[in-house]
């Protein structure tokens, strides 16, 4: 297979690069982004990505509402975010240029498909005059490329109609960018083979040609003076692959099932941005994964409860509105003390809100969304790859304490991706699950007789002698019989609360990055990890007195959290909500935590966090 090695032009070495492809939903920008991501990951870079697509299935072609983008940040150092600003922007049409230009750094590389700038296209984008001619782009390094024409030329003779030919444009754009960043074409050529060679050789051939054409265009034309190169990053040794958060979640639950030797059952109802977990898991039936696409979210979780009663590793996945619908049933899971996972891929709310945008506004719903005193452990993933670890940790807690556990991720990390260090399955410790064996002494079984952690036995239907009934009415401790006595109710309310509190004894102590004592402690949770970690690192490097504490465990909090919070003059809690963790910290620890809150459907930029930190440090 053809391998093109770097050509004659000078190569500039960079520590990191941030590139964004943008165009119409139909232009295949997500694919372009994914290819550059995987290629960079294979090249040993650390990468972080941010796909951003419209809520509409497909808005009218050429409109701003229809613009789809994919941003990749790849570097030779370790990075945690897809980058605040774009250094190279590829715009396939006027609408894409209009909606994305503001993110391009001054002096940044701007590659535009000139052919798309006809009157209609410009009108849809709201351009009176062609921005490439009216000087409005002068502050950027503009490269006007007739991508449509060039692609058509390149694929001539592949026997494609014009429509199909134009579909190859994204490969041309990829080729050009790959040349610009000195990336190998091999992974993409392999992808083309795997994807199209059989189905339609003509298309495969055309895509290949377009890709090459783009690459050669960069190399041969005068337009581009130099190439850039980002060397491999010093990641911990191991083999890596690129993974999105939803993929990592799916792999994580499959791995947890294996480690606990359980059959895996997923009860789910499709909803953006959680559906991909269902899609991924449904592809792995040979792992004994049963996926049940239910009639609604309530059926999804109650089926999950049924599966848990039967002894499966049972999980349900959804997002905001669907989670709201599951709350009553979560109460049943708490009452029956069955282990299961409720995975909430948070999206923009309230109500239907902004389905394809990210947010962190379901933390309090996770804590308090149910009727009555109904405690559930809550954990949150901090990055795409972290989803893999967090769901396994959640399952460990669920079975050890016999309780449903809420796992929070969000649209940003669910769709975003990063390199994931492939673990060695044989080295993973088992997740211990105990089921009481048959009993023949004829005694009545006690389903609510508890162990030292206050967990009840997970007795499975089919086991002789352990017949018992559970349900949502208050029950007598030990016997599990329905019971309305005042003291028993108080005892059970306390017991359920203490059981969840006990989880704190089974999780690691909270760690802090940065100094033991400082002017400011940044406390974050979930998907804002990347921005906060990067921001704190930058401020530390510039000598600021700040530390970072990122919470994976939100209920219960780690045992030492209160002590940690006490060590710092100020506490800053950046959240993509109006201050939900902040309320919990204030209420539990009575500290005057300060909030940095943003609810725009977008993640924090590093700069936003840095500025707030500097502001607070300045105030002192």
């Amino acid at each position, binding site marked *: 297979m053809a391998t093109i090695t770097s050509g004659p032009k000078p190569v500039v070495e960079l520590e990191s690069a941030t590139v964004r492809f943008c165009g119409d939903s139909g232009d295949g920008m997500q694919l372009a982004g994914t290819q550059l991501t995987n290629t960079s990951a294979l090249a040993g870079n650390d990468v972080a990505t941010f796909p951003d697509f419209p809520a509409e299935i497909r808005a009218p072609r050429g409109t701003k509402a229809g613009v789809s983008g994919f941003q990749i940040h790849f570097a030779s150092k370790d990075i945690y975010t897809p980058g605040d600003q774009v250094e190279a922007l590829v715009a396939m049409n006027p609408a894409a240029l209009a909606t994305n230009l503001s993110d391009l750094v001054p002096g940044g590389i701007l590659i535009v498909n000139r052919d798309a700038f006809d009157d209609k296209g410009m009108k849809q984008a709201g351009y009176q005059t062609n921005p490439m001619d009216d000087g409005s782009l002068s502050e950027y390094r503009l490269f006007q490329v007739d991508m449509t024409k060039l692609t058509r030329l390149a694929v001539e003779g592949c026997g494609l109609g014009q429509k199909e030919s134009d579909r190859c444009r994204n490969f041309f754009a990829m080729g050009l960018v790959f040349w610009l960043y000195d990336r190998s074409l091999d992974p993409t050529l392999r992808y083309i083979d795997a994807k199209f060679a059989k189905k339609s050789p003509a298309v495969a051939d055309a895509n290949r040609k377009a890709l090459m054409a783009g690459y050669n265009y960069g190399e041969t034309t005068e337009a581009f003076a130099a190439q850039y190169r980002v060397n491999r990053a010093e990641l911990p040794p191991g083999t890596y*692959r690129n993974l999105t958060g939803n993929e990592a979640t799916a792999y994580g639950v499959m791995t947890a099932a294996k480690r606990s030797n359980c059959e895996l*059952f997923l009860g789910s109802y499709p909803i953006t941005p959680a559906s991909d977990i269902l899609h991924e898991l449904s592809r792995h039936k*040979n792992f004994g994964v049963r996926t049940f696409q239910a009639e609604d979210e309530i059926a*999804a979780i*109650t*089926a999950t*409860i049924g599966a848990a009663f039967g002894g499966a590793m049972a999980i349900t996945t959804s997002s905001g509105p669907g989670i709201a619908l599951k709350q009553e049933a979560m109460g049943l899971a708490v009452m029956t003390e069955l282990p299961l996972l409720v995975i909430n891929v948070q999206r923009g709310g309230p109500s239907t809100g902004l389905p394809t945008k990210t947010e962190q506004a379901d933390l309090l719903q996770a804590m308090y969304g149910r009727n009555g005193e109904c405690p559930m452990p809550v954990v949150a993933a901090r990055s795409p790859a972290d989803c893999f670890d967090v769901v396994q940790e959640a399952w460990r807690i669920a079975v050890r304490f016999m309780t449903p556990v809420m796992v929070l991720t969000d649209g940003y990390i669910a769709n975003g991706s990063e390199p994931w260090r492939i673990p060695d399955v044989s080295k993973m410790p088992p997740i211990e699950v105990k089921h009481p064996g048959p009993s*023949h002494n004829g005694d009545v079984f006690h389903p609510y007789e508890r162990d030292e952690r206050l967990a009840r036995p997970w007795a499975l239907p089919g086991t*002789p002698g352990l017949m018992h*009934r559970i349900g949502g009415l208050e029950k007598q401790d030990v016997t599990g019989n329905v019971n309305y006595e005042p003291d028993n109710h108080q005892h059970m309310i306390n017991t359920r609360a203490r059981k969840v509190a006990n989880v704190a004894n089974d999780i690691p102590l909270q760690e802090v990055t940065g100094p033991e004592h400082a002017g400011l402690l940044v406390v974050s949770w979930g998907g804002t990890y990347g921005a906060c970690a990067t921001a704190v690192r930058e401020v530390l490097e510039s000598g600021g007195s700040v530390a970072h504490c990122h919470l994976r465990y939100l209920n219960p909090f780690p045992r030492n959290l209160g002590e940690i919070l006490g060590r710092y003059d100020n506490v800053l809690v950046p959240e993509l909500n109006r201050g939900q963790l902040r309320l919990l910290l204030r209420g539990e620890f009575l500290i005057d935590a300060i909030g940095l809150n943003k609810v725009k459907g977008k993640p924090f930029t590093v700069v936003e966090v840095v500025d707030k930190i500097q502001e607070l440090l300045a105030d002192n």
Partner: protein
Amino acid sequence: MATDTALPVLTANDFASDQDVRWCPGCGDYSILAQMKKVLPSLGVPREKTVFISGIGCSSRFPYYMNTYGMHSIHGRAPAVATGLKSCRPDLSVWVITGDGDGLSIGGNHLMHCIRRNLDINIILFNNRIYGLTKGQYSPTSPVGKVTKSTPMGTIDNPLAPLCIAIGCEASFVARSIDTNIKHLGMVLKRAAEHRGISFVEVYQNCNVFNDGAFDYATDREQKFDTTLELEHGKPLIFGKNRDKGIRLNGMNPEVVALGKGISEDDLLFHDERAPEPTLAYLLSRMRHPEFPEPIGVFRDVDRPKYDELINAQIAEARSTKGEGDLQKLY
């Protein structure tokens, strides 16, 4: 464990839990419970392999009284709970106990989807045409005009016919019986248990506190022969104390005819449980008192692919084609 699977001969009492039964004295639920306890030992399924799942309602207290595994879940969701359980544990014999409110009001959608998927479980709907546990509001099966706590001027909602709904979803087994008709009820429960795939059974149940006598027409010694009709496979539809009346088909519509005077049994509509098309079952499910005698017994009993079998078959197929999953390869 051989000893357990070798089925010691069990009696009705072996299926009674240690909880005392808390229905109102005279409630129809008692006799359904009694028949269930009587039928189960005859099925050869050990107690530990039997699971009762219910929602919320007087009827849904049922599982507490059975010495089997059970879950008194939340209102209307029992069919969904059962779907998760049976999909993972096809080895279990799963029964869903529900009421006309639990199953047709809040739970109507789960019932519908569970039936259309043809999950291999038995659903028994206790129809007392009222909300019992919440003390007497009308239910989706209450007749129009019914005066209840929530409808002092009478209901205005056209009732749902449980069997019409089940047949509309292509239920593979559909039957009806009556709490006080214990021999018939026992027979129907046994047939339901024997059927593979979804078995949907409506049981007329008297709530003597909030809707007493709702089914007198069907239970009254004098009337019942004229107001109900026992379906028998392959037999003509005959009823009446002296079995002197029958149902004849007139175009698409059933009509009551007197036997004799020129009309013989052969002129009558013959019952066919196994008719591949549910149209006959649908027509029978539409026959209502007082225009018609209400059919009891098995309306439909056909074989269809079962959800729990299919979901596990796909697992098996995937394993045989792709081989048992290997995480290290997957990563």
